[in-house]
């Protein structure tokens, strides 16, 4: 079991199966809020479902509406359990904060800058995020 100390962007704890994308990711026109399926034709996880997973990606992209798409996905119960990113992604941070304020949901978002983590995450069967931003791979 390997642990990584990450920066908490939105607090909370979560655990689940990892879903790792190496391409830029966005909720805006990229996830179907009604199903949780990734629809972006340029994504390497197109067709995969984000619901309940620990979503791992390095870079965000796209429109300032990403937080609205995130919020709708959260309202319909199809959001990931937690999210790990390598660079700040405002859409995801604000989307998670809005989900907390409007629907009482806690979807932690942490920033992990260690390259090695992203290589190992793809091979892990479970990822756990703690309140303090400690990320554990199993």
């Amino acid at each position, binding site marked *: 079991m390997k642990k990584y100390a990450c920066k908490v*962007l*939105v607090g909370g704890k979560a655990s689940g199966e990892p879903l790792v994308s190496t391409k830029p990711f966005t909720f*805006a*026109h*990229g996830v179907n*809020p009604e199903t949780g399926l990734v*629809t*972006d*034709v*340029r994504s390497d996880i197109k067709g995969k479902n984000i619901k309940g997973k620990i979503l791992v990606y390095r870079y965000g*992209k*796209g*429109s*300032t*509406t*990403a*937080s*609205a*798409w995130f*919020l*709708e996905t*959260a*309202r319909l119960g199809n959001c990931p359990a937690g999210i790990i990113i390598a660079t*700040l992604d*405002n*859409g995801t*941070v*604000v*989307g998670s*904060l*809005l989900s907390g*304020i*409007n629907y009482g949901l806690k979807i932690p*978002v942490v920033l992990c800058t260690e390259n090695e983590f992203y290589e190992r995450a793809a091979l892990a069967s479970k990822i756990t995020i703690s309140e303090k931003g400690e990320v554990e791979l199993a």
Partner: protein
Amino acid sequence: MYLTKEQERILSGEEGEARADAMELLVKFGDAVGADSLVPVSSAHVLAHYSSLHESGIEFYERLASLGAKFSVYTTVDPASIDLERWEEFGIDKEYASKQMRLREAFVKMGGTECWSCAQYQVCNFPKMGENLSWAESNSVVFANSLLGCRTNKITFGLDVASAILGLTPRYGMLLDENRTASVNFRISFEPRNELDYRSIGYYIGKNSRGRVPALTGLPSNVTSDDLKHLGAAAAASGPVTMIHYIGFTPGSRTLEEATKNEKVETIDITESEVREVEEELNQTEEKPQLVAFGVPHLSTNEIALLAKLIEGRKLKEGIKLYVYTSKLTYDMVTRYSMKQVIEASGARLTHSTDAEISPLSDMGFEVVMTNSAKLAEIVSSEGEIKIRYRPLRTIIEEVTIA
């Protein structure tokens, strides 16, 4: 993040639930991005279109409006998902329209100014140099930072409304001097032939700036503010660009040395071949279009006048629709001066307060869309449902109309 006594009071709920929620969002976001404080903005530009906001966006707006929230600074709004007056004529169904109208009502209730435009800086929102803004529309963010001498980050939905309510924004990113210095130089090494070349240049910058702040050298002195509007829009659509130092035009960047603060930076040449590559990438088909779309971002009076001149006396071919997207103010003006009548005599339609990239284009039955907008081309093609033909204005008019 440092909060003033007054900001602490708002956060603790002393000015009501809506302002407390707005403050909570600004503070938590500010902490996440490492902002040191909240600073006043002189205006806000927010998103309120149903196609992106969905049901939860309506709930978000209506909850704040019903709690009595009011915008505390001048607030304009990005285009709606439908023509707010003539939506039925454009084949929009009643239920869809009613969702957009609920967003409109909540926006108005909070004191927003109904200037639904993505080129608000050309019609209804005129900051002065040096002001901090909270603008949520990527092309207008580039325009404000690059040409108006203002400072704004690209504000995400939710944060935009919270900022408008409180008149504050977290101090980070493009509000800080150190993040505004040019760190890569794109050099135009050919003579742009038409408006499309400027848009393709913008698209190329977006794809190749990789998070750096670009400078652009070699712009001819006759480049227009409309050209730069579309260039910036294309750059912001294809990459994480929020400012371009247009050397010779951007306030404080008369020379490359000024823009880079005398640091040596990489130079990337843009020749005719780079621009042709962009055209090939964005032009996905040679099929006949069902829709020709002009105005992503919204056309100015100038651009509509040029279109009227080109299309006067010509008729749109059978089976093709041509929509011209603009703001209500511009629409009223070009109606008053008969440009609208000239354009519509060809069979084309002017539509206002909405825009192509946030309209339900596939529900409206369009599969092939022809445009000279690199921004529209980029956004629409990522969903894979609509194919784009990307061509310059004059070529399009010649192809889709007859004398």
